[in-house]
């Protein structure tokens, strides 16, 4: 018998599939994508499920087209998503910027693999984290979530849709080949237990509507095509009417300030952290995604050796939890940052620690998860500080 929408139940499910089901549970009814290891399964599952739930799957000719198509679908009034990996992520950057500039709700999933360039297509890495923050040109804020399990990939994809509607911007789900291809228990709740943020549609009549004039919380209500508002939206710097205003910086200042403030001012609502054993910690493991998970066993071993180590897991990587890290830096000896790259989120930790605590990176070029011994050695070094 055909299932529709939310497949409530308990499953043994692969991460990529859980991501697709999370999107469907959040109301996603448009997926445009392109095959790329290790995200292909998201597309495949969507090609199967979108027709079942009355949505649309289209396999675009490239990732640039995929990103453009999901923006178009969003402006057509439908929740839309795409999924890719490093090489596709790079191709999507320009239209990610268009989505940010035009305040288009949508979700972009990056199942990271080792790079640079073609790299190791089937193996995990976390090398795109700074690209997630700054990959498209210009000044802006972005939201990026980092799941550590298939269950979290399900939950955070839903959260990504909610945040994208609430704050009107593309939201990134930064996972990796390990979590994406891992099969674990995933519980899908009944629909009534899934909290969804509806699109913040315009309420005033046409003629009174200024498409880029924000309400008190810095987010303008959105009109979609076909409602009679006859609005204009552009990637050019624009005024509150949506019209280009490019002769000088007079429109640039208020627009960019608002795009940045709408995230910064709402950090408390956006940032999610998992904290463990921080009350008496002398060493804090600050990590995210698969690396936070593989640090757990070395942390246990370290505690057995008497090292007081706690965990600060970044469920939200961007915006970065500056205040929490600054607070901890005043109390602890050192942060240990295992990540599958040569220091990206670690740079943020260093910046916020501002010399008040050491920051020890446990690097890895990608292609595997961290060797527990290396993480343990870093914890011991941290404890010696």
């Amino acid at each position, binding site marked *: 018998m055909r299932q529709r929408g939310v497949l409530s139940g308990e499953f043994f499910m692969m991460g990529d599939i859980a991501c697709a089901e999370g999107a469907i549970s959040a109301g996603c009814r448009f997926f445009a994508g392109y095959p790329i290891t290790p995200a292909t399964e998201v597309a495949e599952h969507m090609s199967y499920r979108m027709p079942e739930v009355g949505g649309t799957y289209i396999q675009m000719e490239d990732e640039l087209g995929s990103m453009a198509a999901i923006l178009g679908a969003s*402006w057509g009034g439908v929740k839309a998503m795409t999924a890719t990996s490093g090489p596709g992520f790079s191709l999507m950057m320009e239209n990610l910027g268009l989505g940010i500039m035009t305040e288009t709700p949508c979700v972009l999933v990056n199942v990271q693999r080792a790079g640079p360039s073609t790299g190791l297509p089937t193996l995990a890495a976390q090398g795109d984290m700074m690209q997630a923050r700054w990959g498209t040109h210009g000044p802006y804020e972005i939201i990026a979530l980092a799941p550590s399990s298939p269950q979290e990939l399900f939950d955070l994809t839903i959260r990504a849709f909610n945040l994208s509607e609430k704050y009107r911007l593309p939201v990134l789900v930064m996972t990796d080949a390990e979590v994406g291809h891992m099969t674990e228990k995933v519980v899908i709740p009944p629909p009534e237990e899934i909290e969804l943020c509806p699109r913040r549609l315009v309420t005033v009549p046409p003629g009174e509507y200024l498409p880029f004039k924000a309400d008190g919380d810095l987010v303008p209500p959105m009109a979609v095509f076909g409602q009679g508002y006859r*609005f204009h939206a552009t990637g050019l710097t624009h005024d509150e009417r949506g019209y280009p205003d490019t002769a000088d910086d007079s429109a640039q200042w208020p627009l960019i300030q608002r795009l940045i403030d709408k995230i910064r001012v709402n950090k408390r609502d956006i940032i999610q952290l998992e904290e463990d054993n921080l009350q008496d910690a002398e060493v804090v493991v600050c990590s995210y995604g698969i690396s936070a998970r593989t640090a757990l066993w070395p942390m246990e071993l370290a505690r057995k050796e008497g090292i007081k180590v706690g965990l600060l897991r970044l469920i939200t990587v961007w915006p970065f939890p500056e205040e929490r890290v600054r607070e901890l830096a005043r109390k602890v000896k050192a942060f240990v940052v295992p990540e599958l790259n040569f220091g990206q989120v670690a740079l943020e930790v260093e910046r916020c620690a501002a010399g008040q605590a050491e920051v020890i990176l446990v690097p890895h070029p990608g292609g595997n998860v961290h060797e527990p011994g290396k993480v343990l050695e870093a914890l011991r070094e941290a404890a010696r500080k």
Partner: protein
Amino acid sequence: MEPERHPMDDLLREDRLPHIWCSGCGIGTAVTCFISALLKSGQDLDKVAVISGIGCTGRVAGYIKLDSFHTTHGRAIAFATGLKLANPELKVVIFSGDGDLIAIGGNHFIHAARRNIDMTVICVNNFNYGMTGGQVGPTTPVGARTATSPYGCFEHPFNIPYLAAASGAVYVARWTMLHVRRLERSIGEALAKRGFSLVEIIAPCPTNYDRWQKRRTGLDSLRYYHQKGIIQHGINPRDVDINVDGGEIIEGVFVNVEKPTFSDFCQEGLSKAMGGRE
């Protein structure tokens, strides 16, 4: 006394006039023909979406008072694909230039034509990248001097109608900016047509292209179109290339066929495959 209003004023963003286009530019005429055709078509104007890319023609979306979007360079068709599939009730029109649609946007152009997505593409071809100062483009005729072909263009240009037809477009027409009545009629036919419809408009860019080919004003270009434009409906699009500046320009409706759209094909196929399970 009440100021008089032009019949098209309701469809123009008066608060943005005067527009940025040069004296003698063909885009203004293209917009007039489009608005005229649209008003005659009886389309529900609230359901019309105008999407454009980057360039002088790309600015069209900003001046027409309909739901409109100014996308990134070359991506108007991809954006429009998502928009149309999300809301099939919309009448989606892409209004962009030769460089935007055929160079950087070439891949999206051929795939949307291949899929026969129900959309109308109006391509204003002025043989160069005008907005940035007149650089060589994929339709620049052989030998023409431009800002980036100062010794002459040594590339063979695209034949846009041939490209569209070969990719699967169901309606393909070309008119010069001189033939306004026929252009308006073609736009009307393209709007009414189900499937991927293309209207190529040969237009002057006196400031950045035509004056280097000795056509210093828009009027010089109109004389050129008058002298060298030849109407040949139904001719094989293979034979309508504009390879040499100053040569023949073949105009007319070249392709007008019926074919299921992407959506038709999907609905039908899915119904059969899913056997009532949806």
